[in-house]
């Protein structure tokens, strides 16, 4: 894999899978409230965090994402009652397995953000961006042709 130079202008690219009902609305709220957060995320809206296939996560990394964030409704608040709770089990395993094979834990993060938590969303993005920035560009699973 080629070594792209890491310079000061490098900004992490983070793919954020946000559930339609809570986290996407939370991101919307952060936006209309004019809250500042780093422009590092590329949002993919999904109907529910239960829609997340682990392949989405590794495909994002393979396509060159430096980090992946998945965010859904808080447990108990799922629009579909239990989508996020079933998903939580998957997420725990994915997170653990990726870390086990040696992918930095902060590359793939999971969180809960409700529709009313614009501030929480902004600080989540700030924090995840900072975590990923510290790690530098993601090269382990990025496909270089």
């Amino acid at each position, binding site marked *: 894999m080629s070594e792209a130079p890491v310079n000061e202008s490098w900004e992490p690219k983070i793919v954020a899978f946000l559930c339609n009902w809570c986290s996407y609305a939370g991101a919307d709220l952060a936006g209309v409230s004019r809250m500042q957060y780093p422009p590092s995320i590329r949002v993919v809206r999904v109907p529910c965090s239960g829609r997340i296939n682990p392949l989405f996560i590794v495909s994002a990394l393979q*396509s060159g994402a430096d980090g992946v964030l998945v965010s859904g409704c808080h447990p108990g608040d799922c629009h579909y009652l239990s989508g996020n709770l079933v998903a939580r089990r998957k997420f725990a395993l994915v997170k653990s397995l990726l870390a086990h094979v040696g992918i930095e834990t902060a590359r793939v993060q999971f969180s809960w953000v409700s529709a009313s938590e614009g501030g929480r969303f902004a600080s989540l993005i700030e924090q995840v961006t900072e975590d990923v920035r510290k790690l530098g560009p993601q090269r382990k699973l990025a496909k270089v*042709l």
Partner: protein
Amino acid sequence: MDKALLQKKDLDALLAAIRMRAPVYAPARDGGDGGTVFRPVESAADVCLGQVNTRLSVKGLFFPQRESLMKFSGSALSEVTLPTDSLVVFGVRPCDARSLTWLDTVFGGGGHEDPYFQERRKSAVVIAMACDQPGASCFCTSVGGSPYGSDGADMLVSQAGADGALLFEAASEKGRAFLEEHAGLFAPANAQAREAREARASAAAKKMEALDLTGLKEKLDAALDSPLWDALTKTCLGCGVCTYLCPSCHCFDISDEKSGADGVRVRSWDSCQYARFTLHASGHNPRPLKKARMRQRVMHKFSYAQETAGTAFCSGCGRCVRACPVNLDIRGILTAFKDLP
């Protein structure tokens, strides 16, 4: 010079001399379980010649499992990526070397030359290592080969000299040129070594039980719809081990990979044993069942190849026998058809 002796201790010097010009590939350790594959070696110490055969055959050096055919940018071709480097392979078993002659037929014939294969083949020197200790799953003598055969190789090496000195025999013009080039390291072959070579060759061949496969093609052709196909392939798992390890299997896929607008068109090994291999976009599959897929594998090697190339495409290297997860032994399949009334 056709035949020459190399003292075992001089193998290092020979490898070093070759490496001045081209990388040397030879069987070398791979993984924790004692298996070997062909990879670049630096000295004789890296070379493992003790095992029956390498995990993967030599074909991958000429027909890599993944290779770029061309690069593109947007909707236009940007570069044709023909290989340019030459190589020398040392320690190829005669079964593998013989299979190269069939790959030559496939990639060089049919009215379309395959420049990628041909470029590599043209520039390479193949040094075969005679086989003194065939394994229990080896059957080269049943399919017209020999543990001391040199088909497909430029040179055959055997441990026929006194004190294990290596006897090099040129098998092609390239081989003769090689011996001339490195003449300083070699001593002339003596009569003793020549005699020892013959004795060892016949001893090695005797270590294998030969199957009588005469008339097999006719039997297979007549048994296309035989229930044996189903009966013999029930336990097949449908993986690609037999075909990927086979030195003569050459099926491939072509696929495009891109990131952004740029990408490569790559060729990669594929297997007739995979259900999707022949699947049409419409959903129709001409070989939907594993009995049809196994029939294809066996027929291609032992019947179709006879018609198109005049020889069976099986060198009896035994890899498919050894590595099949369910021990589906092609010798058993062949014998079952051969024994049909």
